[in-house]
């Protein structure tokens, strides 16, 4: 797509960014130029390697409004709104322990204990477990829900052996 000026109407000025939450519970963004957008969705561009920087704001049509280079530069009420919205949207349970795996041939059933409580899910294939970086392991279940193991060496022996079998 070409960057004709007319197509940039929706861009927000990040230096004068204001954020709030409306009565529908949706995040709203505005800037010093008097523009205002409701139903803003924040997206971390580096969710694992650098979660606190580079957060994109997009509107309901997935058009990018602006990119916030650093969460820390935002004024306090705006930062709070944004953090709340991010917390509401992010759902990556941290696996604390694997209690049971139905077998070593996929698809197989897993029972795990996460920071959000115990859960059972189905692992579709061994490609759905992969290592991110040196220590971190990501597990994606059959429904696309992602589970994170920040450091597989911190797990107990049984869980570690299961993870070790895959990565």
């Amino acid at each position, binding site marked *: *797509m*070409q960057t*004709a000026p*007319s*197509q940039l109407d929706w861009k927000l000025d990040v230096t004068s960014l204001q954020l709030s939450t409306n*009565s*529908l*519970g949706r995040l709203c963004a505005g800037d010093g130029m008097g523009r205002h957008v409701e139903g803003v*969705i924040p997206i971390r561009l580096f969710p694992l390697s650098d979660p606190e920087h580079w957060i994109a704001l997009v509107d309901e*049509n*997935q058009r990018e409004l602006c990119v916030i280079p650093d969460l820390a530069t935002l004024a306090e009420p705006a930062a709070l709104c944004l953090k709340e919205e991010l917390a*509401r*949207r*992010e*759902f990556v*349970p941290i696996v604390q322990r694997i209690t049971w795996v*139905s*077998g*070593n*041939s*996929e*698809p*197989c*059933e897993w029972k795990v204990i*996460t920071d*959000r*409580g*115990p*859960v059972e*899910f*189905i692992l*579709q*294939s*061994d*490609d759905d477990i992969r290592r991110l970086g040196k220590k971190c392991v990501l597990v994606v279940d*059959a*429904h*696309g*829900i*992602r589970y994170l193991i920040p450091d597989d060496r911190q797990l107990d022996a049984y869980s570690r*052996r299961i993870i*070790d*079998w895959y990565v």
Partner: protein
Amino acid sequence: MTSSRLSSPHVDRTLSGVAQPFRPAVAATLRPDEIIVSAAELDLNSQLFFEKRCLVLTTARLLEFALDTAEVQKIVSLSDTVRGQASLQGGLGYLEITCENVLLARFAYTAAVEKSIEQLASRLNAGAHMRRAVAAEEDPGLSVCPSCGALLTAEQPICLACTPSAAPPPTRSLLRLMGFAQRRWQLVSLGFVLTLLATAVSLIPPYLTRPLMDDVLLKWQTNDEAVAFSRVYPYLTALFGAAFVAWLLSWAKTYVLAVASEQISSDLRNATYAHLQRLSLEFFGGRRTGDLISRIGSDSDRICNFLSSHLVDFASDVLMVLMTSAILISMDPVLAMAMLLPFPAVGWLIQRVRIRLRHGFAKASHAWGEMLSVLTDAIPGVRVVKAFAQEQREIDRFQRSNQHVLDSNVRVNRLWAFFSPTVSFLSDMGILIIWIFGAWRVSQGIVTVGMLAAFLAYISRFYSRLDSMSRMLANTQRAAASSYRIFEILERKPTVVEPTKPVNPGRLRGGIELQDVHFKYGTRPVIRGISLSIQPGEMIGLVGPSGSGKSTLVNLVCRFYDVTEGAIIADGNDIRSFPIEEYRRNIGIVLQEPFLFYGTIAENIAYGRPNADRDEIIAAARAAHAHEFIRKLPEGYDSLVGERGQSLSGGERQRLSIARALLTDPRILILDEATSAVDNETEREIQAALDNLVRGRTTIAIAHRLSTLRNADRIIVMDGGEISEIGPHAELLERGGLYARLHQVQLELAERGR
């Protein structure tokens, strides 16, 4: 998901949609005139912790129930302005209940229960009278699975084929080879009989040593003149006979079993490859080529090796051990028992190392596949590597994965190195015990020297076999890992499934209707509700920014994937009711990057119709404007093309693929950016060829260059998985929307290019 079954016919019909544990609480809460319209299970609480909850939509209220408490968690009274909106992103969804710009409630759930939540939301939004109508409906009726078209009943409201489920009870992966062995049962059973006989014959010689020693040799030694030298002849002859027969039998056995195992592994390769070809595109998207190739190639070879030599050896070893034990016990039970003492120790050791070895071998095999994947990645991409001067980085990447192979093999070998000598040591100990016991029993006069010699002859065989049996362990693990990797492919169910009651499409007229088509790739919605009716013979142009779902839409029409929701109807039938191959016979496709197989030009043109006549091939090539350049090649239509063949230009390759599509004479034609990889001049040539191809066929053309679509009857502008504009070229220009803007930009670029 409302997976509850009707537990008894007495359960109130309206409660049948509610999961069993919530029924008492729901029943207690409902008012007498209140009827359940929809129920859905929630799997998260508001703090996003995993917790089972239940959402019940009645004619008047929306109620939330928690497990273990009869108290209603949340009550929303419904009015005509209450709306529900379910949205899912990255596996986490929210159902938001609003009323005139005020948020009344928000329920969190994961993708696992998405379908029932969406159904609840749509019934909520359908309005009060609609809810009453649904609730009043006498019979819930039959419905159809939204993703595969299978029939669903009230007893089984979810489609078993489409709900992800864990594997059938895990079996030992090697046992699954039995199915393949059964097909060759004659050879296998002949081999088994031969093995049995060969083993039995090989046990004869030690048996002869006892009388030879006691009745002849020892008598000579004690100078007993009564024994003539001729006494040894029958023994010597019998020894020779046994050796000779054993030789013949084991020759036959080895040959027969080698043939059988080759056949089994060949069957296995064929089955795996055939299954691989039937799997839907989704499977290949997530796999790396190197890994798949090594599964069909080296894993099946390893299984063959295992079957032909290791398994046979093992079987005859087991027979030998059993027969030897029987003979020894019949000769002297006490001595036999002493001999069996070290056995449990060895068995225990084997069990311990067993699991570790198996994991080790699977990891080594995995690492090997990874290493091959690095190669298959980098070698075809060598131009990019060199252009960006990243040779060293690729070398490092390879070294890293090679190091991984080394590490995992070293780990396996460390275990293995300990294992083998330990078995040898234990067998030496076993023989020592026989010497101790034997010497004692000979001194007591219970056992003769000949019998002790026979025992020792048996026992040394016994333990040498045990040693090789322990070697078998590693081979079994290795083969089990291989067989696991092969069956992983074989047992994968294609996501695009053949219909249970197929309708033969025959030759379609080419009318296509998309009915509220949705498609999700994982949890990411790519197509969000497209409805469109295409007349037979109509040409539709698809334009839009990349990522807007154009290619996905044609993939759905080709049935490379199945729609997540909605339906695609061809000539009045859901395309999921056609046998896949029969349906695809009606479709021709020209891709941006034409793929030519290694073979002659004629073979490549006739790929979709291998029995086409030469004149048909030439006619197709002519119509595709390919005939001219083919004629100029030294071998004409017999020129070899493809990976190792003659190099052709992009435009030439594209025209060959157009000829390929023309020859199959499809009713529905898909052009996926057919002209975007070539220059303007070539485009003009291809365009002429395409005009011939499009004539009289239902065509869906994706184009980046809008000029390609000048003949299109209607143009569809897609944006974010939805149709944003639709209409003929001129009309869309007038409207001044996205299409007009795209057109303007391209005109400007073309002007500048001149």
